[in-house]
């Protein structure tokens, strides 16, 4: 601002007629009407305002009511009632007793605010027109606020040119006069205008924040500028600063519904912040049960949790109370869309267009709902529709661009996002995603139909063959069992930085997951993004490929709990099936969710570790269904979801059970398998990880604790580990065996079988060591070092095939080290498997080994063995280029020449 670019001719004309309502240019009182003496108003206006701004609404109401019908008191009372959702009473307060008396502009403005909040365009406009007729051109009155609200309203009802011109005028007035000429409320209005115009001149976003700051400094009691700043920051996904701004409002008034609503919009646990103790959305609604954005968010949350029926009920109730509020209409639209109720949705769309012809919020809401349910095509279609309504809409562009990328339409998505960025460079999601796309330009694309594998160039040679092989194995196997093969190609993106993967998934770093499936696009972290032993890349790929099947078979309608459960079941079948400690703890504490709520564990976790527990729990549900009813029922259920039925109907139709009955049966199975170990864990509750031991790792202390609870497997395990470390192997073995017997399915990295294997190895009992290690790895497949140890044991037992299997598993756990590749290459060479040897020698080379010449020579030999003379020659020359006197390589070179 203070920038000639944003001034139009109309604005200049408007500014020329400015009047300052006070001689000195400072803000006068909002009205010139007589104010009663302070003695007639207990505590005076400051006491009532203080009560209002600190959230003591009852007290504020009482004080304002005692003050009589002064404009200031009426405005304060109306605001108090508006904040607590008593809209009708607020409007009644603002209605003059004498219809002949023209209403005060300040009261008309408050009236307009109430109507706007309720989504009532026409009466809001009437009130604004009426107040503007009285104050137009008068700085120091409510003029600029009125103009801004009217401009924003015009944009929503499709009067784009007039709306923008009006907002331009507000900016022009601000530019014309010194900042000191404006009151805090006027500055706030200017900030609102600037924020709305930002997409045309992005510097205005920053100006808006600056003006909000100025307004907040001028009137620290008024929360509005800080709320508007927070909302602008939230729109840009700057959650940290938004949170700061909201918290500053809440420190002043912990019961400000708009601030609580803003807090509820923040992603749960975002930025490393803990999960809030209380739900701010519920608090907001407790204070103002009719606050439309909060009512809408409530519906969206239910939809996120895939509780469509309840969402629709709530949305209908909200629309009943606030029939024209765009937020609640949009929320109802989302509920109808996801329930595939096309006729009511069409009716709603028609009505929305009639009331809000220029407002893209319905389409944006529908696009966002579709996106959350993995219906990316529909999301893109709706986002396009939103863009037609508001061509510069940042939200719509973002939704369109991101969803095109999720559909694998990379160039198209990038173009949309580039356009969005040019309009709004402050949108963190768009910026992060474009940066990521820039980075992807340097990635290698390995095409092997139906797969297109996109991965860092430095890792392509090493990873791509394994990714391709595993993906093919998975899809072939799934195709046979599920009868589903994806029609289109499948794009598999692999990221060597967790932050990049996270941006690809949700647009911001810090997602905390390893893989994601968008249907025809899979993204996962490269094993190099994590430490060996902590992340099993192959099972993650397998898991995501299973999603391709369940999403594809249901046209993306499968509920979250089912698709996650099925994917994990497939993953466990292929790679291993240990139960996390958190699962035992949750079982003990009765924190496993019932079936109808199981989705909540994924999308709205209420305690740390709940997501991991929910995955495992869901997989046990699927395992139970398959075991009791046969695999064909899984296929029937998928078909039920495809046809649009919800979880309860599908369970009833396919299993002939109520969901509660299925739940009870699953619980019984879980109880049989894990119940005793969970029960005997004892207090205190542990979400994840071992309960803290006050005596540290002292074996004596831990043995004493273990003796006090002989059926507590964690205590037996801790004692066993401590004894093992103290080299008291016989005692350690006893404890570890006991732990293994109590909880044979425990899947922690410190599982008892791993330690038992080491004890047996120390004792030279190699067969027992092999068995124990095999059991351990069945539960903990990510244990890279343990796979290498198993390979050694298999080799020592002269079982090269077992050794090779163990080495492949080690590579599936972590492929970035040369060791398993070298050993596998040697085994392949000995077994006369040249194709495998070549693959492994290539992998060794891709690990950038210190002995590069040696690795190249090994590869040359492998090619030679495989009969590929040309590759052998090329590789031996490369080896000799580094080490020209490398005698074995020289011999191979001559041999190759002699063979011609």
């Amino acid at each position, binding site marked *: 601002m203070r920038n000639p670019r944003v001034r139009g001719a109309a604005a200049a004309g408007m500014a020329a007629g400015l009047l300052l309502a006070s001689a000195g240019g400072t803000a006068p009182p909002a009205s010139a009407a007589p104010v009663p003496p302070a003695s007639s108003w207990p505590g005076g206006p400051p006491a009532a305002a203080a009560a209002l701004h600190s959230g003591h609404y009852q007290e504020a109401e009482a004080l304002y009511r005692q003050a009589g019908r002064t404009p200031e008191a009426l405005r304060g009372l109306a605001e108090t009632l508006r904040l607590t959702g008593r809209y009708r009473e607020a409007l009644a307060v603002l209605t003059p007793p004498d219809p002949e008396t023209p209403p005060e502009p300040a009261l008309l403005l408050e009236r307009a605010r109430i109507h706007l909040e309720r989504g009532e365009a026409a009466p809001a406009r009437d009130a604004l027109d009426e107040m503007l007729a009285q104050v137009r051109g008068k700085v120091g009155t409510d003029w600029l606020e009125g103009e801004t609200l009217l401009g924003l309203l015009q944009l929503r009802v499709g009067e784009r040119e007039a709306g923008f011109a009006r907002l331009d005028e507000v900016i022009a007035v601000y530019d014309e006069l010194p900042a000191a000429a404006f009151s805090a409320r006027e500055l706030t209005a200017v900030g609102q205008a600037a924020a709305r115009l930002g997409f045309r001149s992005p510097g205005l976003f920053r100006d808006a924040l600056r003006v909000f700051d100025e307004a907040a400094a001028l009137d620290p009691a008024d929360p509005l500028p800080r709320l508007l700043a927070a909302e602008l920051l939230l729109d840009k996904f700057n959650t940290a600063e938004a949170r700061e701004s909201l918290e500053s409002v809440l420190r002043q008034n912990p019961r400000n519904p708009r601030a609580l609503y803003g807090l509820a919009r923040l992603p749960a646990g975002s930025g490393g912040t803990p999960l809030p103790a209380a739900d701010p959305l519920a608090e907001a609604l407790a204070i103002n049960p009719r606050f439309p954005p909060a009512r809408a968010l409530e519906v969206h949350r239910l939809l996120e949790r895939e509780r469509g029926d309840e969402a629709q009920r709530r949305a209908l109730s909200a629309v009943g109370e606030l029939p024209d509020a765009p937020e609640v209409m949009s929320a109802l639209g989302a509920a109808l869309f996801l329930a595939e109720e096309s006729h009511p949705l069409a009716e709603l769309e028609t009505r929305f267009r009639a009331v809000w012809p220029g407002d893209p919020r319905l389409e944006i809401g529908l696009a966002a709902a579709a996106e959350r349910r993995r219906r990316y095509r529909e999301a893109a279609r709706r986002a396009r529709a939103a863009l037609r309504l508001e061509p510069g809409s940042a939200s719509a562009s973002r939704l369109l661009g991101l969803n095109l990328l999720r559909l694998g339409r990379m160039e198209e998505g990038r173009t949309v996002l580039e356009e969005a960025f040019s309009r709004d460079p402050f949108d963190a999601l768009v*910026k992060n995603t474009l940066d990521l796309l820039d980075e992807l330009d340097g990635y290698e694309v390995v095409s092997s139909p139906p797969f297109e594998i996109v991965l860092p160039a430095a890792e392509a040679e090493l990873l791509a063959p394994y990714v391709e092989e595993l993906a093919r194995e998975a899809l072939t196997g799934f195709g046979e069992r599920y009868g589903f093969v994806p029609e289109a190609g499948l794009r598999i993106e692999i990221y060597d930085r967790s932050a990049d993967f996270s941006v690809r998934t949700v647009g911001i770093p810090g997602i905390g997951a390893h893989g994601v499936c968008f249907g025809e696009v899979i993204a996962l972290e490269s094993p190099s993004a*994590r430490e060996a032993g902590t992340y099993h890349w192959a099972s993650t790929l397998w898991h995501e490929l299973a999603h391709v099947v369940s999403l594809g078979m249901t046209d993306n309608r499968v509920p979250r709990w089912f698709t996650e459960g099925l994917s994990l079941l497939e993953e466990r079948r292929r790679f291993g099936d240990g139960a996390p400690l958190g699962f035992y703890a949750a079982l003990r504490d009765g924190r496993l969710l019932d079936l109808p709520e199981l989705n909540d564990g994924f999308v709205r976790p209420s305690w740390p570790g709940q997501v991991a527990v929910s995955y495992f729990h869901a997989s046990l549900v699927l395992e139970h269904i398959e075991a009791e009813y046969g695999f064909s029922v899984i296929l029937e259920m998928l078909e039920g979801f495809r046809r649009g039925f919800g979880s309860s109907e599908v369970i009833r139709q396919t299993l002939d059970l109520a969901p509660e009955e299925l739940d009870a049966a699953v619980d019984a199975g879980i109880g049989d398998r894990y119940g005793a170990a969970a029960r005997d864990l004892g207090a205190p509750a542990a979400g994840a990880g071992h309960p803290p031991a006050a005596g540290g790792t002292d074996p004596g202390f831990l043995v004493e604790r273990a003796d006090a609870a002989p059926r507590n497997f964690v205590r037996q395990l801790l004692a066993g580990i401590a004894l093992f470390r103290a080299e008291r192997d016989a005692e350690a073995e006893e404890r570890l065996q006991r732990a293994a017997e109590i909880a044979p399915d425990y899947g922690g990295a410190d599982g008892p079988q791993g330690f038992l294997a080491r004890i047996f190895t120390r004792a030279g009992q190699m067969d027992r060591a092999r068995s124990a290690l095999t059991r351990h790895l069945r539960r903990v497949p990510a244990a890279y070092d343990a796979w290498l140890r198993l390979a050694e044991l298999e080799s020592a037992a002269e079982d090269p095939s077992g050794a090779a299997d163990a080495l492949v598993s080690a590579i599936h756990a972590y492929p970035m080290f040369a060791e398993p590749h070298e050993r596998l290459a040697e085994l392949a060479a000995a077994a006369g498997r040249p194709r495998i040897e070549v693959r492994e020698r290539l992998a060794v080379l891709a690990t950038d080994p210190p*002995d590069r010449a040696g690795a190249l020579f090994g590869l040359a030999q492998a090619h030679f063995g495989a009969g590929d003379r040309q590759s052998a020659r090329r590789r031996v020359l490369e080896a000799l*280029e580094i080490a*020209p*006197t490398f005698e074995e390589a*020289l011999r191979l070179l*001559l041999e190759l020449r002699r063979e011609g």
Partner: protein
Amino acid sequence: MRDSGASLRAAALIAAALIAAAPSAFGLFPGRESLAEMRTAVSGRRGQPTLLVVAGIGGSPNHRKRFSRWARELCEAAVSGPAPFSVQLLLEREAEPAETGQATGACVPTGRSTREEIRRQIAAAGAGIDPGEPLLLVLIGHGSGGADARFQLPGPDLAPGDLAEMLNGISEGEVTVAHLGSASGAFVPALSAPGRVLLTASRAHETNETRFAKHFIAAFSGAGADRNKDGRLSALEAFDFARRGVEQEYEQAGLLRSEHPLLDDNGDGVGSLDPEASPGSDGMLAARRELMLRTAAAAEAAAEAGDPEIAALIAERDELAARVDALREVRESMEEARYLEELEALLYRIAEITERIEAARKEKG
């Protein structure tokens, strides 16, 4: 990368990066001729190597065992090659076979790793050393940094000045010192001298326990460190191998690296993090400094230096190999096809000469 509202700052950074990259972009890599010289310089000469391994005080049973085990592993690698070292092994405790494994043959500890014993062993080695004969001193253990830098020993610790004084008594031979402990960079200024190669596990202020030692020892026990496959392990190869191992270990563990190995061989008292075989820079001498013969062929080649026919063939082969080195360094300026053609021609000639060397060896029994 896009910058939200700070694009000017980003542009400045890019400009700085381009400037920093400019020297290499112009191909300023000295030492092309020297590589060829170096290759011929390392062939054919070798005296009896002496290895003095000192395992300092452990401070805990685990560390004592680890240091002793590493010392023994290094000793075993050194005596098992085709041209065995004469080894002196000094440990914190003279006899602890149960902890360090069964000591056998040349790897029986010679004595305790006290400062006086080290002085005595260095003096003895120095007295018996001939010109050109190598002495490799390896210190395994804990070090301390700062102004009062020490290598920790049973009894009085070893200060950089103490060790410099001991080594200064050796007037002949090629002295290489590898200090594998923490804060070992603190020894560089005092020990640095013309003709002396110094390798340290860390910089002077890096006092955390180091991981360099195990990788350095692995350079002796495996074939992977002999990067150019000439059958000889040079000090630079051993250093690079160990440094790489350290880097990878930290990277794989996702840890911030707390040790940065140094090499000094130009006598300027300042260790280099990234030495290279270029004249005047650290690494030139280390590239020529042979620590160990790794293959029987290399040992034979050294022994056959007196056979005129084989010596001539070896010289011819080394000359051609030097031409490969030189060719490789001008690759960027050549057409790829011509480069490959010349490379291949040279390599075939080397292969043929190598075959003739083998035939001559067979013929001469």
